[in-house]
């Protein structure tokens, strides 16, 4: 049989893609991280990264990503849970996903109008007597818009794992006298933890690296790792430093993936 030949024929373009666009770029980032801005080999970028300025930025980036993930989870879990109980649940799920297909930039742009000084949010605040506030270019607006953008991505995996849950288990818990809260804590949540982990993974990693939102919505008040990388690559043009930050972001990414477990294991 010439099975092997065919298989290699199939795999050739794909393998070429893996080498050129998966492995090579990662290695290049690592390689570039060892060069200073003048193109000399040095470890100065790593030294710079461990100065308080960069460590503080990394920490604050982590904090924002954490906040965004937690809030998104708190909103998404009940939503996913309730969605699984609706009549046409697949249709409702689709409607939840549709906004995530709308261009990200347009959603950010919408919030420029909503949160603007004379925007609808401020008119509302004035109407209820709180008075107009600066909403745009604050931490609040950044977290709010980020959560808004990530909610569908969090709901989807949680919905899927809730949907796969065997309802007889809940009947069993009920028969054995478990209260609703105990059923949730001891049965539902542990059985859907994979979905929660997957959701946290798809929110946390991008939240660390958002850069257009920090520019448009947070008005450069919030600097995430992503903003720093973009700044180094496209503004300062210090590719070495940019790559160094990227190396750390990649390390963090692999750490999070191993922590949250790869759902796709052994497909």
């Amino acid at each position, binding site marked *: 049989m010439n*099975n092997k030949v065919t298989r290699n024929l199939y*795999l050739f373009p794909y393998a070429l893609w893996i080498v050129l666009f998966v492995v090579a770029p990662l290695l290049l980032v690592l390689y570039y991280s060892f060069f200073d801005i003048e193109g000399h080999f040095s470890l100065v970028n790593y030294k710079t990264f461990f100065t308080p300025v960069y460590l503080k930025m990394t920490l604050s980036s982590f904090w924002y990503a954490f906040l965004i993930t937690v809030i998104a989870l708190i909103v998404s879990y009940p939503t996913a849970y309730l969605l699984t109980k609706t009549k046409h649940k697949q249709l409702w799920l689709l409607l939840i996903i549709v*906004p995530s297909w709308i261009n990200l930039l347009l959603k950010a742009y919408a919030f420029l109008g909503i949160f603007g000084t004379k925007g609808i949010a401020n008119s509302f605040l004035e109407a209820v007597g709180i008075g107009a506030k600066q909403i745009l270019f604050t931490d609040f607006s950044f977290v709010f818009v980020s959560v808004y953008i990530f909610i569908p991505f969090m709901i989807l995996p949680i919905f899927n794992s809730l949907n796969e849950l065997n309802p007889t288990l809940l009947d069993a818990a009920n028969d054995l006298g478990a209260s609703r809260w105990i059923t949730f804590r001891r049965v539902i949540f542990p059985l859907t933890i994979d979905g929660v982990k997957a959701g946290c993974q798809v929110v946390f990693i991008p939240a660390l690296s958002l850069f257009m939102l920090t520019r448009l919505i947070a008005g450069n008040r919030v600097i995430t790792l992503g903003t720093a990388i973009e700044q180094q690559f496209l503004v300062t043009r210090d590719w070495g430093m940019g790559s160094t930050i990227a190396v750390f972001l990649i390390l963090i990414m692999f750490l999070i993936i191993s922590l949250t477990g790869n759902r796709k294991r052994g497909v």
Partner: protein
Amino acid sequence: MVYKLDQRITPLSRIFLVLIFFILYAPIFFLVFYSFNSGGTMYHFKSFTLDWYKELFQDSRLLIIVLNTLVIALVSSLFATIIGTLGALGIHSIRKQQTKNTLLSLNNVLIVSPDVIIGASFLILFTMAGIKLGMYSVLLSHIAFSIPIVVLMVLPKLSEMSPTLIDAARDLGASQWNVLTKVVLPFITPGIFAGFFMALTYSLDDFAVTFFVTGNGFTTLSVEIYSLARRGISLNVNALSALLFLFTLVLVVVYYFISQRNRPGRWGVKK
């Protein structure tokens, strides 16, 4: 106290769901609503007008950008679908579990990587390889980041397919080419279509990667909207977003029908 699990949704939770849907859709309708505002701002609705749409259709630069975006999306999805499907067929035929898992992990790297990393590393790659930043670098990047999603869409279909189907075809004298075109490909077609559509939406949505690898002469819609939005509010963008929203809805409906077709049993070989 006995309660049934698929009990009806309580009014309170109904309000919660309505609120979530409201929050998700309000900004989008807000944009569309003000695209008809003659006032030129996003806070005071003066009167109804279609001027912004007229202006949009007269802006030849923007129309070229829209065209660029569509061409890049279609061409890159096509290439990504071909390479991704071949890759999925290849991965599926590998017997050794370890090799399979390694390939899958490598496949998923670009899916989990933040856009900034993909953009920055591709920027280095193209610069090192001497590829001029512009249309081709954008096209190559879009193909590159769409391939893994196609693989992920096609692989489950392949594992769903019973190997006895292929054995049967072989027994009946089908050549390898026939097995592929007459048995395997028809079976995985829904997966291929789903992959193509996902690739299409990935490409249309992408901002960050394009932002990194595009040169001065070439822009896609996302990058253009970003630079417009940085300059402040202009209702052209609202009109544009209304049209894009409609376009997205069309895509969703198409996708919905494809996924309906995707239901097992259609090919009469449900396990």
